[in-house]
């Protein structure tokens, strides 16, 4: 392939797949999985510097395609297809996802045109300034008291339980937190400093994993002068982030 691959221009793996299908003028209901998988993998291999977190989404799709490919190559599939049974083509799910995705992608393009004033659209009044409507907050001091007492009561009851974080904590996100901090403090930070705001174990482990990953990528350098001494973290010389 002679083109330069820019994975960033695709919004996700489904977008890339749609592109490949379009490029090869393939019938979406009869995708030659082997061919598409090969091309897809080639794209991933050719891609240059790419955001780690985003690449993950593409890799998940890659493994899914490889699974499909191996399923399609299993013997006996051919005969089964002749039977008018409720046999499922292993590609059905992928087709459905592609169709769903395409539907919204086209809607997004239509919306964009609306926004740009192509076709009929309504207009609303321009606000002379954003603060044209004075807003006054209302609240009562008594409610503050009730709230704080409630919270203390809840925390008392909760103390013996583990704290469950509300959201999943993302290693990629934590990596960015660390890099951002190091960009601000180029003369380095203490290892402990990194963890002072942590409120639960899950977050702690995500942050620690993120740190290890950054060290592996040489984006962060850790130095410890003697055994059990303090560990200092510096921005590394790794690839730009």
């Amino acid at each position: 392939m002679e083109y330069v691959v820019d994975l960033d221009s695709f919004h996700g793996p489904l977008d890339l797949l749609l592109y490949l299908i379009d490029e090869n003028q393939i019938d979406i209901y009869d995708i030659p999985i082997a061919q598409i998988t090969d091309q897809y993998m080639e794209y991933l291999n050719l891609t240059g510097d790419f955001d780690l977190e985003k690449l993950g989404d593409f890799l998940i799709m890659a493994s899914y395609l490889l699974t499909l490919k191996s399923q399609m190559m299993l013997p006996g599939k051919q005969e089964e297809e002749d039977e008018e049974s409720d046999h499922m083509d292993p590609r059905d799910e992928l087709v459905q996802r592609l169709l769903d995705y395409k539907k919204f992608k086209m809607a997004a393009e239509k919306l964009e045109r609306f926004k740009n004033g192509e076709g009929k659209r309504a207009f609303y009044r321009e606000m002379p300034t954003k603060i044209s409507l004075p807003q006054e907050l209302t609240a009562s001091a008594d409610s503050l008291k009730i709230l704080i007492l409630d919270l203390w009561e809840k925390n008392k009851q909760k103390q013996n339980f583990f704290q469950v974080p509300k959201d999943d904590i993302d290693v990629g996100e934590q990596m960015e937190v660390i890099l951002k901090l190091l960009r601000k403090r180029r003369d380095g930070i203490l290892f402990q400093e990194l963890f002072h705001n942590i409120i639960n174990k899950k977050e702690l482990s995500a942050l620690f994993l993120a740190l290890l990953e950054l060290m592996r990528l040489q984006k962060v350098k850790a130095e410890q002068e003697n055994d059990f001494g303090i560990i200092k973290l510096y921005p590394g010389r790794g690839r730009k982030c």
Partner: protein
Amino acid sequence: MLMREEIKAAVEAILFVRAGRVGLDEIIEIMDVPLFDVIDIMREMVAEYQEANKGLLIKEVDEGYVMCTNPDYSDYLVKMTEPHKQKLTPAAMETLAIIAYSQPITRAEIEKVRGVKSERIIANLLEKNLIAEAGVKAVIGRPILYETTEEFLKVFGLTSLKDLPPLEEGLDV
């Protein structure tokens, strides 16, 4: 007691000044007219504007009303204003489209359609006030639901969600 035409005129002035949604409750409070009368008067007024085929329309939105231009004249307004002050990336547009057509919807559901993590884009749309949280879904984990806002309608020149272009199945790949 106010005359019917006076109430209409006052509401007209109020809608004009607000440049956004005016709640039914606000109209009742400002005008001091019973709810039943207001609903009836507003229904009449919305129809009158529609029929007159003038430059302006009144639309009912979410237990309230908003005044906007008649889409028939959008050609002239495009020449005058810059409607696309809000720059959105294709990925943000895609996410917004999914939310617009499937609201209320959770982050996991959005990510399933897109096939990519969408946390940052959602945070960005929230910040731009194009979407808002709409409670939580009654499933395990109680994930947050998202919906589009009035600002969304304004940016895209829609008078209501019913104006969204119909979704087409993407058959012709």
